[in-house]
């Protein structure tokens, strides 16, 4: 049988290495770049589908040359080939422009399933997936925690506030991977070494006229204000009394 699967991957700065510069109050991003967390679930799911049913997994990512490392890692996990949509200023565009860049290239590819992460670690909008689907004219499912395939019919579980929504949809479809979908594998050493031989197509993109739909200001740190009352070295019973009294004072528990 086999499915043609495309995985959309975003390379982001490592969020564990973000520091706030005390002097300027500005965030300092490390130049250590990684694949956005939810995208790893997407890559893993694509690989599992291919391993179970056959097919091909193509990794697509837009950005500056460093994005090659992200694609390489996905190839090391087991993807078959990569496409790098070369665009140095990718972070300057709003999500609709990014979606246009992706969709313009995807239109020329064959696919049954497009997978991406629920949202990215850095800006966490969760917009690009649905917007790519809209531009391609295909349905999308977000917050995906389970995928079952039966030919060209998919049964998908979605995480919602009420619990898991079960939906059915046919291919082609775009799925957004959520925590709980799977456990992403670590690329094996042999996998990483073999990845060097897998093809990565470099494509130059026409930069869309983004206009100024959105204009961003400088990031700032929210001052939480001084912390409240902290009890230290107070015996448990006393501390408990004080806490309950305070809860009553703040009307957080019924008085009397």
């Amino acid at each position: 049988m086999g499915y043609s699967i495309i995985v959309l991957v975003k390379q982001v700065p490592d969020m564990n290495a973000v520091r706030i510069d005390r002097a300027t109050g500005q965030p300092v991003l490390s130049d250590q770049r990684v694949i956005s967390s939810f995208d790893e679930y997407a890559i893993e799911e694509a690989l599992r589908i291919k391993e179970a049913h056959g097919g091909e997994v193509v990794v697509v990512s837009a950005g500056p040359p460093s994005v090659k490392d992200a694609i390489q890692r996905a190839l090391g996990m087991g993807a078959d080939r990569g496409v790098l949509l070369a665009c140095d200023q990718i972070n300057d565009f709003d999500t609709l422009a990014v979606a246009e860049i992706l969709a313009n290239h995807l239109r020329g590819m064959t696919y049954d399933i497009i997978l991406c992460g629920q949202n990215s670690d850095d800006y966490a909008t969760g917009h690009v997936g649905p917007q790519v689907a809209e531009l391609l004219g295909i349905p999308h499912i977000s917050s995906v925690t389970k995928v079952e395939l039966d030919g060209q019919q998919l049964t998908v579980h979605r995480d919602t506030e009420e619990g898991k929504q079960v939906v059915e949809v046919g291919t082609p479809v775009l799925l957004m991977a959520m925590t709980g979908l799977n456990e992403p594998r670590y690329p094996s050493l042999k996998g990483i070494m073999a990845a060097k031989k897998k093809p990565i197509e470099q494509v130059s993109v026409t930069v869309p006229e983004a206009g100024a739909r959105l204009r961003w200001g400088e990031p700032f740190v929210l001052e939480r204000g001084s912390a409240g009352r902290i009890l230290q070295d107070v015996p448990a019973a006393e501390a408990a009394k004080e806490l309950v009294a305070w809860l009553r004072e703040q009307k957080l528990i019924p008085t009397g």
Partner: protein
Amino acid sequence: MAADGGVLIVGEATEGALRPVSLEIVSAGRQVADSLGQPLVAALLGSGIESAARELARFGVERVLVVDDPRLAAYTAGATTAVLASIARQLEPSVILIPGTTAGRDFAPRLAARLRTGLAADCVELAVEDGAVVAVRPILGGRVQTAVNLGGSRPQMATIRPGSFEKATASGSEGTVEPIPVDLSDDDLRVLVKGLVTEESNGATRLDQAPVIVAGGRGLKEPENFQLIEELAAELGAAVGASRAVVDAGWRPHHEQVGQTGQTVSPRLYIAVGISGAVQHLVGMQGSDYIVAINRDPDAPIFKIASFGIVGDLFEVVPAVIAELRAAKA
């Protein structure tokens, strides 16, 4: 095409009932509508939602556009996007505000793409400057915030993080409720909703709606010790939450997880027991009105945002608190 047809807010209803988050979006919409001097219009989609629509109309919304159709009983992005796009083309609103719920964040981008406009995600604050909506939203895992000016977009769209705005109060006046005919093609209905799997959240209070949450973390040491959390929660009529560490360790189910990869909550009171307060967790609960922290480590980051903190052994403090609460009731 002036596109000043008003500020459009999208409410949410499930099983015929208006979800409380709809009232938060009314407040947000009211604020923007007043600043712009434009009417506030609400859209509500679903099946059997007539009374929900009338309820919404009592909260200071000039017009409630109701789209009531059995095909909208269960939410799908396709149908919702199609209906709202059609409404937007008719109404030509200057602003569209959508709750940042899983549904809202699912269809809003699709709608923005269909309308070829800009969308700001997960906003916690709104302002209006020279007719432009300026939204503030957290980025970089919640460590910093940034302001987004939507002035270059028509309509200006934003999803609003639940808990960021107070719920609107009944205004005394009643807006009009206008049924809108629905025009759905097969294309809009390609996703079929089969139902809900709810075994896990069976009976338990929904975290994102609970006014009080007691959450436990690694400091509890063993899964059995979560009983302390459950007992304290029971005393307070609270929902039980968990940090990512204990969910990953398999002690608690995922729907109890609070944090970046779990749920974002903003209850009146959040009690963090044995949780150090890593950024990924704080992001999920820092919007709580009051935060109480109990941890043995005085340097735990959670104390920086706690309204009341106790540095001590939770295995002594929590039972003492439970005892004190029981004594207070007696």
